[in-house]
């Protein structure tokens, strides 16, 4: 198997935690992994992305080539669109619906939605409302990961195990909340498709 994933968002939204969970799951499965991250200046509220590649064969490039990403997972709808040149023609976009507005010229959300409509496979999920309604404000990113799980080509139970491993040091309550969030995203994706 081989899955190329672009994780997109704004500095501080938690895309690196998503990458860590997928990476740990891939490691547990004995897969090859490359995960390029953005550190430094962009993390101050700028656009950030991570290229995550998992494969059963050795991987050379740390970066995903144009037009070849299988999945874009975005914490923010405009950030999903930013990477569309990297999406393969039959790739999937799993994106949060709430805009993160920290710039004066943020585009009209209807224009963003229309542009997303033009892509072949888009899953939208209102992770912020779901997180709020289910009292898991800090786990919105895990809801998104749950929604994306089936597009990753990985066993869902492996992702759950990875959440347990990665959050173990933070205590059972945090592990449980993140697991619930992951499950919630996994069940919601069909409804909102």
């Amino acid at each position, binding site marked *: 198997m081989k899955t190329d994933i672009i994780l997109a968002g704004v500095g501080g939204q938690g895309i690196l935690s998503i990458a860590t969970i997928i990476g740990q799951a891939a490691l547990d499965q004995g897969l090859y992994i490359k995960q390029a991250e953005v550190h430094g200046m962009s993390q101050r509220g700028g656009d950030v992305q991570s290229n995550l590649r998992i494969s059963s064969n050795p991987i050379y490039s740390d970066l995903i080539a144009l037009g070849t990403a299988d999945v874009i997972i975005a914490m923010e709808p405009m950030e999903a669109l930013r990477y569309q040149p990297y999406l393969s023609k039959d790739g999937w976009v799993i994106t949060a619906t709430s805009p993160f507005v920290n*710039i004066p010229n943020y585009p009209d959300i209807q224009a963003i939605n229309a542009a997303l409509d033009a892509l072949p496979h888009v899953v939208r999920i209102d992770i912020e409302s779901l997180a709020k309604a289910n009292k898991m404000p800090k786990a919105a990113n895990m809801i998104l990961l749950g929604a994306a799980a089936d597009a990753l080509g990985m066993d869902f139970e492996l992702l759950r195990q990875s959440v347990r491993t990665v959050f173990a040091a933070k205590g059972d309550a945090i592990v449980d909340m993140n697991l619930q969030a992951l499950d919630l995203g996994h069940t919601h994706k069909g409804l909102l498709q």
Partner: protein
Amino acid sequence: MKKLLLGDQAIAQGALDAGLSGVYAYPGTPSTEITEYIQLWHHSHPGSPVHDRWCTNEKTAMEAALGMSFAGKRALVCMKHVGMNVCADAFVNSAVTGVNGGLVVLAADDPSMHSSQNEQDSRFYGKFALIPILEPSNQQECYDMMAYAFDLSERLRLPVLMRIVTRLAHSRAVVDITDSPRPQNPLSDPADPAGWVLLPVRARRKYAQLTAVQPTLQEASAYSPFNKVVTEPKAGKAVIAAGIGYNYLMENYPDGVPFPVLKVSQYPLPVASIRALAAQSDELLVIEDGQPFIEEQLLGLLPVATVIHGRLDGTLPRTGELTPDNVKVALGLASTQTFAPSATVVGRPPALCQGCGHRSVYEALNRVLADFPTSRVFGDIGCYTLGALPPYQALHSCVDMGASITMAKGAADAGIFPAIAVIGDSTFTHSGMTGLLDAVNENSPITIIISDNLTTGMTGGQDSAGTNKFEAICRGIGVADEHLRVVVPLPANMDEITHIIREEIAYKGVSVIIPRRECIQTLARHTRQKKQNTQTPQQ
């Protein structure tokens, strides 16, 4: 054991497993995570005597590491590429003294300037200093090369430069690490103690030795396990791929490259291999990240008739990092069909955090300077450089660490008034203090703002060398007490701050204003830690 590690972390783990006794570094993207990893490791191995405290700048780091090497122990110096400029004096001369314990200098280059002000290629420094250079292509090589580099350094009695780029520093992969780390070196005396005193008479002898040993360095490259020749019967084109460039080549040929390839990960260039490669091909493509370091050297190594493609002839872009896509174009392969970039998307530049103290500094400065249309504000390197962007647009320059103070002085010398410098606390101790002394000695009419957030903020909140010492430092350098002012940069204090800025602009001599409030990122982290500590009962 297998571990998922960033390139930076693989270097750190590799150094630890190679018997490292000390890391010396100043934070700088993309090199910061090396030292942070060693600090974290040290935290869980409290009994291990590994030096891991941050240094004041790259020069002090390089010199301290050389001192540790003098004493026979293995030392690592880490920095971003522009840090090489700061430590260049010590670095170049360390090749002349040579080393005792292994000494590895790690330079993390930033092609595409993700978080930097230029794209300089550190390999030129290695060639300039006449020492071996290693350039890993992946995370496993980052790890494996550290033990190799320390051994090579001790065998040749020379420092070794290891050069990585952002995409390797900040990309994770599974790395196989040893279960039996090497112990640290014992203390020992250098073999040639007189050679460490670079008086001209001895320096000439040492420099002659350094040039005489170059064929041995060549030989080391020729037999390096990290340089690899892949021969293919099909002649015509051949490729030289260096460091991470090798990955992009291989990525484009999943079923194998159909022409000869030389992978270069150790320098000086393996000249014989290159000549052999050129002899069986009509044209050579050089794939290297950064500047055309190999490509330029080929012009002197190969027959004039050899056609060389790379960054100089435009086959690859002259600037910016390599990508699988620009390498694909250079290889003449058909491009993949893609969705066009969305016209809806707008840029989202980084910005100062909401609630950041630097914001209040720029707010106050802009209010006052509205009355001084001839004012010029000289900025420096750090989060506060973002004050150059909207909404503040408050800076007229940002060049190098510490340049704010000395540029303001030079501009004042030329007649600019008011000349203001804005510099952060960590940048001030890194390279601002000496410039302040110049200004004090001439009582230059400049106003210096040391925006003190008690940390090295831009790189993620590392300790700042001068915390709690700034008033004492400024007084010691000779700033008059009545022109050394401390304020708390909060919106509520705006009247007081603007008043003080006005007063100090009116003073025709050196003033230092220190707005001091903790970085809100480290404040949040400290608050979380405190909360955790009170929740966890003491064992």
